Protein backbone atom coordinates (compact mmCIF):
# COMPACT_ATOMS: atom_id res chain seq x y z
CA UNK A 1 0.00 0.00 0.00
CA UNK A 2 2.79 2.37 0.97
CA UNK A 3 4.81 1.64 -2.15
CA UNK A 4 2.00 2.94 -4.34
CA UNK A 5 2.30 6.37 -2.78
CA UNK A 6 6.03 6.30 -3.35
CA UNK A 7 5.28 6.21 -7.07
CA UNK A 8 3.92 9.74 -6.81
CA UNK A 9 7.06 11.16 -5.25
CA UNK A 10 8.77 11.93 -8.60
CA UNK A 11 5.58 13.61 -9.84
CA UNK A 12 5.40 15.70 -6.68
CA UNK A 13 9.03 16.74 -7.06
CA UNK A 14 8.43 17.69 -10.69
CA UNK A 15 5.34 19.68 -9.71
CA UNK A 16 7.36 21.52 -7.06
CA UNK A 17 10.13 22.32 -9.54
CA UNK A 18 7.60 23.42 -12.14
CA UNK A 19 5.96 25.66 -9.58
CA UNK A 20 9.31 27.16 -8.63
CA UNK A 21 10.16 27.89 -12.28
CA UNK A 22 6.78 29.48 -12.97
CA UNK A 23 7.16 31.58 -9.84
CA UNK A 24 10.59 32.89 -10.84
CA UNK A 25 9.45 33.58 -14.38
CA UNK A 26 6.53 35.67 -13.18
CA UNK A 27 8.27 37.33 -10.23
CA UNK A 28 11.82 38.09 -11.39
CA UNK A 29 14.53 38.02 -8.78
CA UNK A 30 15.50 41.27 -7.06
CA UNK A 31 18.43 42.46 -9.09
CA UNK A 32 19.63 45.45 -7.11
CA UNK A 33 23.16 44.96 -5.92
CA UNK A 34 23.69 46.90 -2.76
CA UNK A 35 27.08 48.27 -1.92
CA UNK A 36 28.92 46.43 0.84
CA UNK A 37 31.14 49.46 1.32
CA UNK A 38 28.99 50.88 4.11
CA UNK A 39 30.32 52.11 7.47
CA UNK A 40 33.69 52.31 5.79
CA UNK A 41 35.77 55.34 4.88
CA UNK A 42 35.45 56.91 1.45
CA UNK A 43 37.95 55.28 -0.89
CA UNK A 44 40.88 57.54 -1.70
CA UNK A 45 40.40 59.47 -4.91
CA UNK A 46 41.14 62.81 -6.50
CA UNK A 47 38.85 63.59 -9.41
CA UNK A 48 39.33 66.55 -11.76
CA UNK A 49 36.47 69.03 -12.26
CA UNK A 50 33.66 67.61 -14.36
CA UNK A 51 33.01 70.97 -15.98
CA UNK A 52 34.22 74.56 -15.93
CA UNK A 53 33.35 76.76 -12.96
CA UNK A 54 32.77 73.94 -10.46
CA UNK A 55 35.63 72.49 -8.41
CA UNK A 56 36.70 68.86 -8.70
CA UNK A 57 36.28 66.41 -5.85
CA UNK A 58 38.79 64.53 -3.75
CA UNK A 59 38.13 62.19 -0.85
CA UNK A 60 39.74 64.52 1.70
CA UNK A 61 37.07 67.12 0.86
CA UNK A 62 34.54 64.74 2.38
CA UNK A 63 35.91 64.71 5.92
CA UNK A 64 35.47 68.36 6.90
CA UNK A 65 33.19 67.69 9.86
CA UNK A 66 29.93 68.29 8.02
CA UNK A 67 27.73 65.31 7.13
CA UNK A 68 26.84 65.45 3.46
CA UNK A 69 25.51 63.73 0.38
CA UNK A 70 27.66 62.42 -2.43
CA UNK A 71 25.48 62.07 -5.49
CA UNK A 72 26.54 59.80 -8.34
CA UNK A 73 24.92 61.08 -11.51
CA UNK A 74 25.39 61.58 -15.23
CA UNK A 75 24.09 64.02 -17.79
CA UNK A 76 22.95 61.08 -19.95
CA UNK A 77 20.92 59.65 -17.07
CA UNK A 78 17.28 60.57 -17.43
CA UNK A 79 16.15 59.60 -13.90
CA UNK A 80 18.83 62.00 -12.62
CA UNK A 81 16.74 64.84 -14.02
CA UNK A 82 13.79 63.66 -11.99
CA UNK A 83 15.99 63.76 -8.91
CA UNK A 84 17.16 67.36 -9.40
CA UNK A 85 14.26 69.07 -7.52
CA UNK A 86 14.84 66.91 -4.45
CA UNK A 87 18.56 67.71 -4.47
CA UNK A 88 17.66 71.39 -4.78
CA UNK A 89 15.35 71.08 -1.77
CA UNK A 90 18.07 69.40 0.28
CA UNK A 91 20.55 72.06 -0.78
CA UNK A 92 18.12 74.81 0.20
CA UNK A 93 17.77 73.18 3.61
CA UNK A 94 21.52 73.53 4.08
CA UNK A 95 22.69 70.02 3.21
CA UNK A 96 26.11 70.05 1.52
CA UNK A 97 26.01 68.01 -1.69
CA UNK A 98 28.96 66.91 -3.79
CA UNK A 99 28.64 65.20 -7.13
CA UNK A 100 30.48 62.55 -9.08
CA UNK A 101 29.71 62.59 -12.81
CA UNK A 102 30.04 59.17 -14.43
CA UNK A 103 31.42 58.81 -17.96
CA UNK A 104 30.55 62.37 -18.85
CA UNK A 105 31.81 65.19 -21.04
CA UNK A 106 32.34 68.71 -19.64
CA UNK A 107 29.94 70.31 -22.13
CA UNK A 108 27.23 67.75 -21.36
CA UNK A 109 27.62 68.30 -17.61
CA UNK A 110 27.40 72.05 -18.15
CA UNK A 111 24.19 71.63 -20.16
CA UNK A 112 22.76 69.32 -17.50
CA UNK A 113 23.45 71.90 -14.77
CA UNK A 114 21.97 74.69 -16.89
CA UNK A 115 18.76 72.76 -17.39
CA UNK A 116 18.38 71.19 -13.97
CA UNK A 117 20.14 73.59 -11.63
CA UNK A 118 23.35 73.03 -9.74
CA UNK A 119 23.00 71.81 -6.15
CA UNK A 120 26.63 70.65 -6.05
CA UNK A 121 29.51 72.28 -4.16
CA UNK A 122 31.98 70.26 -6.20
CA UNK A 123 31.70 67.78 -9.05
CA UNK A 124 34.41 65.24 -9.83
CA UNK A 125 34.65 63.64 -13.28
CA UNK A 126 34.76 59.85 -13.00
CA UNK A 127 35.53 59.13 -16.62
CA UNK A 128 36.31 55.44 -16.19
CA UNK A 129 33.86 54.74 -13.36
CA UNK A 130 36.82 53.93 -11.11
CA UNK A 131 35.44 55.75 -8.07
CA UNK A 132 32.01 54.32 -8.74
CA UNK A 133 33.48 50.81 -8.69
CA UNK A 134 35.52 51.59 -5.58
CA UNK A 135 32.26 52.62 -3.89
CA UNK A 136 30.44 49.43 -4.85
CA UNK A 137 27.96 51.45 -6.86
CA UNK A 138 26.44 49.95 -9.99
CA UNK A 139 24.26 52.61 -11.56
CA UNK A 140 23.10 56.18 -11.69
CA UNK A 141 21.67 57.92 -9.82
CA UNK A 142 22.96 56.75 -6.49
CA UNK A 143 23.51 58.80 -3.38
CA UNK A 144 25.81 58.13 -0.46
CA UNK A 145 25.27 59.64 2.99
CA UNK A 146 28.70 60.48 4.36
CA UNK A 147 29.34 61.59 7.94
CA UNK A 148 31.69 64.39 9.05
CA UNK A 149 34.65 62.01 9.28
CA UNK A 150 34.23 60.82 5.71
CA UNK A 151 32.65 57.49 6.66
CA UNK A 152 29.93 56.23 4.30
CA UNK A 153 26.76 55.57 6.29
CA UNK A 154 24.15 54.72 3.70
CA UNK A 155 23.69 54.07 0.02
CA UNK A 156 20.51 55.11 -1.76
CA UNK A 157 20.05 53.41 -5.10
CA UNK A 158 17.83 55.14 -7.58
CA UNK A 159 16.08 58.48 -7.51
CA UNK A 160 15.64 60.33 -4.21
CA UNK A 161 11.90 60.91 -3.99
CA UNK A 162 10.15 63.79 -2.27
CA UNK A 163 9.13 61.49 0.56
CA UNK A 164 12.76 60.60 1.18
CA UNK A 165 13.89 64.18 1.81
CA UNK A 166 12.81 64.53 5.48
CA UNK A 167 14.30 61.16 6.40
CA UNK A 168 17.61 62.01 4.74
CA UNK A 169 17.76 65.36 6.52
CA UNK A 170 16.99 63.74 9.88
CA UNK A 171 19.67 61.12 9.34
CA UNK A 172 22.30 63.70 8.38
CA UNK A 173 21.25 65.86 11.35
CA UNK A 174 21.73 62.88 13.67
CA UNK A 175 25.29 62.47 12.40
CA UNK A 176 26.32 65.95 13.51
Amino acid sequence: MRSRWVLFVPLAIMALLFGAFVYRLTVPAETLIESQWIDKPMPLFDLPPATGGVAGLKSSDLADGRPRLVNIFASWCIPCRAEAPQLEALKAAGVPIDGIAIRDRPEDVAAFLRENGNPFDRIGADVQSSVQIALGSSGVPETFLVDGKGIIREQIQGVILQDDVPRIMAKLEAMK
Partner: protein
Amino acid sequence: MRGAPLFNWCIPAKAGIQSGHEPRERHRALGSRLRGSTLVFVATLFAAFGAPATAQDRLPPAPYAYQQLADPAKEAKAKALMETLRCLVCQGQSIADSDAPLAGDMRHEVRTKIAAGESPDAIRKWLVARYGNWVSYDPPFDGATALLWLAPLLFLAVGLWLAFGRLRGGGGGEP
Protein backbone atom coordinates in the same frame (compact mmCIF):
# COMPACT_ATOMS: atom_id res chain seq x y z
CA MET B 1 15.25 48.73 1.32
CA ARG B 2 13.22 50.72 -1.09
CA GLY B 3 10.27 49.70 -3.20
CA ALA B 4 11.24 47.08 -5.71
CA PRO B 5 9.26 47.80 -8.89
CA LEU B 6 10.53 51.35 -9.22
CA PHE B 7 14.12 50.24 -9.46
CA ASN B 8 13.92 47.58 -12.03
CA TRP B 9 17.42 47.30 -13.29
CA CYS B 10 18.06 45.58 -16.50
CA ILE B 11 14.86 46.19 -18.36
CA PRO B 12 14.77 49.72 -19.71
CA ALA B 13 11.65 51.43 -18.50
CA LYS B 14 9.12 52.69 -21.01
CA ALA B 15 9.68 56.30 -20.06
CA GLY B 16 13.14 56.52 -18.59
CA ILE B 17 11.97 58.35 -15.53
CA GLN B 18 10.07 55.35 -14.26
CA SER B 19 13.25 53.43 -13.72
CA GLY B 20 15.18 54.79 -10.82
CA HIS B 21 18.43 53.44 -12.12
CA GLU B 22 19.70 53.97 -15.59
CA PRO B 23 20.54 50.67 -17.20
CA ARG B 24 23.99 51.44 -18.41
CA GLU B 25 23.34 50.81 -22.07
CA ARG B 26 23.43 47.84 -24.35
CA HIS B 27 22.76 49.53 -27.60
CA ARG B 28 26.24 50.52 -28.60
CA ALA B 29 27.26 46.88 -28.82
CA LEU B 30 24.35 46.17 -31.08
CA GLY B 31 24.98 49.15 -33.31
CA SER B 32 28.57 48.37 -34.13
CA ARG B 33 27.92 44.79 -35.11
CA LEU B 34 24.68 44.82 -36.95
CA ARG B 35 24.04 46.12 -40.39
CA GLY B 36 21.53 46.01 -43.21
CA SER B 37 18.39 44.09 -42.55
CA THR B 38 19.35 43.53 -38.96
CA LEU B 39 18.93 47.26 -38.46
CA VAL B 40 15.22 46.68 -38.84
CA PHE B 41 15.48 44.18 -36.04
CA VAL B 42 17.34 46.70 -33.89
CA ALA B 43 14.79 49.37 -34.66
CA THR B 44 12.10 46.95 -33.54
CA LEU B 45 14.02 46.34 -30.36
CA PHE B 46 14.21 50.06 -29.67
CA ALA B 47 10.53 50.40 -30.36
CA ALA B 48 9.74 47.43 -28.16
CA PHE B 49 11.71 48.60 -25.17
CA GLY B 50 11.28 52.29 -25.77
CA ALA B 51 14.66 52.83 -24.17
CA PRO B 52 15.60 56.51 -24.16
CA ALA B 53 18.11 57.02 -26.92
CA THR B 54 20.00 59.58 -24.86
CA ALA B 55 20.46 57.16 -22.00
CA GLN B 56 23.99 56.25 -22.91
CA ASP B 57 27.16 58.11 -22.39
CA ARG B 58 29.13 59.53 -25.27
CA LEU B 59 32.60 58.72 -24.03
CA PRO B 60 34.90 56.24 -25.73
CA PRO B 61 35.57 53.00 -23.79
CA ALA B 62 38.27 53.05 -21.13
CA PRO B 63 41.74 52.25 -22.55
CA TYR B 64 41.91 48.69 -21.21
CA ALA B 65 38.26 47.88 -21.82
CA TYR B 66 39.00 46.38 -25.24
CA GLN B 67 42.79 46.39 -25.32
CA GLN B 68 44.85 43.52 -24.04
CA LEU B 69 47.84 43.91 -21.78
CA ALA B 70 51.17 43.82 -23.58
CA ASP B 71 52.48 41.03 -21.36
CA PRO B 72 50.76 37.79 -22.47
CA ALA B 73 51.17 36.17 -19.05
CA LYS B 74 49.47 39.09 -17.32
CA GLU B 75 46.76 39.26 -19.97
CA ALA B 76 46.05 35.55 -19.44
CA LYS B 77 45.69 36.15 -15.71
CA ALA B 78 43.41 39.14 -16.28
CA LYS B 79 41.29 37.23 -18.80
CA ALA B 80 40.86 34.26 -16.48
CA LEU B 81 39.80 36.59 -13.68
CA MET B 82 37.41 38.62 -15.85
CA GLU B 83 35.63 35.47 -16.94
CA THR B 84 34.72 34.77 -13.31
CA LEU B 85 33.49 38.26 -12.46
CA ARG B 86 29.85 39.03 -12.98
CA CYS B 87 28.74 42.05 -14.93
CA LEU B 88 26.61 44.22 -12.64
CA VAL B 89 24.23 45.64 -15.22
CA CYS B 90 23.88 42.70 -17.60
CA GLN B 91 23.36 39.96 -15.10
CA GLY B 92 24.13 36.51 -16.37
CA GLN B 93 27.19 37.65 -18.29
CA SER B 94 30.75 37.90 -17.10
CA ILE B 95 32.53 41.21 -17.53
CA ALA B 96 34.65 39.49 -20.16
CA ASP B 97 31.52 38.85 -22.24
CA SER B 98 29.68 42.11 -21.83
CA ASP B 99 29.79 45.26 -23.93
CA ALA B 100 28.13 47.41 -21.25
CA PRO B 101 30.23 50.49 -20.40
CA LEU B 102 30.41 49.52 -16.72
CA ALA B 103 31.73 46.08 -17.69
CA GLY B 104 34.32 47.81 -19.90
CA ASP B 105 35.32 50.04 -17.01
CA MET B 106 35.61 47.00 -14.76
CA ARG B 107 37.85 45.26 -17.31
CA HIS B 108 39.97 48.40 -17.35
CA GLU B 109 40.11 48.29 -13.56
CA VAL B 110 41.09 44.60 -13.53
CA ARG B 111 43.76 44.96 -16.23
CA THR B 112 45.21 48.07 -14.59
CA LYS B 113 45.48 46.29 -11.25
CA ILE B 114 47.00 43.16 -12.82
CA ALA B 115 49.50 45.32 -14.71
CA ALA B 116 50.42 46.95 -11.39
CA GLY B 117 51.25 43.50 -10.04
CA GLU B 118 48.19 42.75 -7.94
CA SER B 119 47.16 39.11 -7.69
CA PRO B 120 43.82 37.95 -9.16
CA ASP B 121 42.77 36.77 -5.69
CA ALA B 122 43.39 40.19 -4.19
CA ILE B 123 41.41 41.87 -6.96
CA ARG B 124 38.50 39.48 -6.48
CA LYS B 125 38.55 40.20 -2.74
CA TRP B 126 38.66 43.93 -3.47
CA LEU B 127 35.54 43.68 -5.61
CA VAL B 128 33.72 41.32 -3.25
CA ALA B 129 34.33 43.81 -0.42
CA ARG B 130 32.35 46.33 -2.51
CA TYR B 131 29.69 44.33 -4.31
CA GLY B 132 29.45 41.23 -2.14
CA ASN B 133 29.88 37.64 -3.33
CA TRP B 134 27.37 38.50 -5.99
CA VAL B 135 30.10 39.88 -8.23
CA SER B 136 32.06 36.63 -8.23
CA TYR B 137 31.22 33.47 -10.14
CA ASP B 138 33.41 31.57 -7.69
CA PRO B 139 31.27 31.40 -4.55
CA PRO B 140 33.17 30.77 -1.31
CA PHE B 141 32.20 28.04 1.14
CA ASP B 142 30.03 29.65 3.81
CA GLY B 143 26.65 29.33 5.50
CA ALA B 144 24.71 30.36 2.42
CA THR B 145 26.56 28.10 0.00
CA ALA B 146 27.24 25.10 2.24
CA LEU B 147 24.34 23.15 0.74
CA LEU B 148 25.56 23.93 -2.77
CA TRP B 149 29.00 22.51 -2.07
CA LEU B 150 27.87 19.59 0.06
CA ALA B 151 24.91 18.48 -2.06
CA PRO B 152 26.98 16.14 -4.26
CA LEU B 153 28.33 14.38 -1.17
CA LEU B 154 24.81 14.25 0.24
CA PHE B 155 23.42 12.68 -2.93
CA LEU B 156 26.30 10.23 -3.05
CA ALA B 157 25.55 9.19 0.52
CA VAL B 158 21.86 8.73 -0.27
CA GLY B 159 22.73 6.75 -3.37
CA LEU B 160 25.08 4.46 -1.46
CA TRP B 161 22.51 3.99 1.27
CA LEU B 162 19.85 3.04 -1.29
CA ALA B 163 22.22 0.75 -3.16
CA PHE B 164 23.33 -1.08 -0.03
CA GLY B 165 19.74 -1.34 1.13
CA ARG B 166 18.78 -2.86 -2.21
CA LEU B 167 21.69 -5.31 -2.22
CA ARG B 168 21.17 -6.40 1.33
CA GLY B 169 17.40 -6.63 0.94
CA GLY B 170 17.82 -8.52 -2.34
CA GLY B 171 18.87 -11.71 -0.50
CA GLY B 172 15.70 -11.70 1.57
CA GLY B 173 13.43 -11.50 -1.49
CA GLU B 174 10.47 -9.19 -1.98
CA PRO B 175 7.99 -9.04 0.88
